[in-house]
């Protein structure tokens, strides 16, 4: 399991006997901010993290490696279907798809309740209204949890033929 930045910071503070107030004085970062970093209430960047670690005699090493995301069967199927469509998405194709997408958005507006579905639906609407092809591709192929959840209220139905769709699903099985 990945260790969070707050946990790592806490570990280094404990091992070096550094209190929040000491770290605040040395780094110039406000103590409440450090407290929020530690509790996970506030995200902080690698740069900010490195700055705090350097005050305690450490540097941040970031290891980059590709990992296979943990997805449910349906999340993986949905990603494959959207990836197929993303390969065809251009400014021109988006214009052709608009009537279908807008019909789907109307259906979704009537059919979903609660959060985050309604919020995610609004995000789709903004992306479509702004003809944000790059943003749409990101949602259609990304693995951040909020992108996976956006695909649960996707307006991209009806754009693949049934044969194309089944071919994609075969690859997922």
């Amino acid at each position, binding site marked *: 399991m990945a260790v969070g930045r707050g946990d790592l910071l806490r570990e280094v503070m404990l091992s070096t006997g550094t209190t929040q107030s000491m770290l605040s004085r040395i780094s110039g970062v406000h103590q409440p901010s450090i407290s929020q970093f530690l509790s996970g209430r506030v995200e902080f960047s690698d740069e900010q993290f490195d700055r705090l670690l350097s005050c305690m005699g450490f540097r941040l090493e970031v290891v980059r490696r590709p990992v296979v995301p943990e997805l449910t069967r349906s999340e993986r199927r949905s990603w494959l*279907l959207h990836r197929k469509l993303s390969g065809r998405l251009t400014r021109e194709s988006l214009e052709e798809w608009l009537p279908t997408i807008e019909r789907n958005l109307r259906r979704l507006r009537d059919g979903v309740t609660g959060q985050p579905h309604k919020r995610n639906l609004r995000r789709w609407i903004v992306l479509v209204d702004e003809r944000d092809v790059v943003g749409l591709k990101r949602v259609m192929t990304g693995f951040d949890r909020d992108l996976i959840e956006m695909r649960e209220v996707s307006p991209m139905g*009806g754009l693949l033929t049934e044969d194309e769709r089944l071919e994609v699903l075969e690859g997922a099985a």
Partner: protein
Amino acid sequence: MSTRSVRPASSSATRRSSSSVRSILGTFGEEQLPADATMSIEVDILPIADDNDETARLADLIEGVAGEFSLFEQLHGFSIDGVDLETSALPAGWRDRLVKVQNANTAAPSGEPRFTGWCLDKHDLCVAKLCAFREKDLNFVAALLTAGPVRQDVIAERLPTVAERYREAVVRALGWLAS
């Protein structure tokens, strides 16, 4: 588990049924549910088979016919997602508490036969959602707790009975319930 609710069905019902109620709707009418209870336009169906490989195979078949982006979805306005036993954390005894649904909505277009759908018990559904612990899951359970259809003590009692591999999720869920 996704925001959609798992709706177990017997293998025969899975082959023949196209009932569209969601799991919580096996217990409550839509008008009885709080507006904040999160629901999408997908219905999860768990085919009951002898082992999970067969369940997964049936789930894929369901997906092919009526899943995301299918003609079925375009026609009916919702899709059916075939899920397997690994999809969600279910408390011990969930099969004995399934809620039978058999009415005009589960009938063939001609009115006969009336197929049978089996929905998760409302508290078992909340257990599964709390183990998943996503925003939509918490919102769903919070809305039901606030509105009154489910009892916190029953959920808390059943949470520890899920499979051992969900132990951390149970601790987190119990913490959330107590907060």
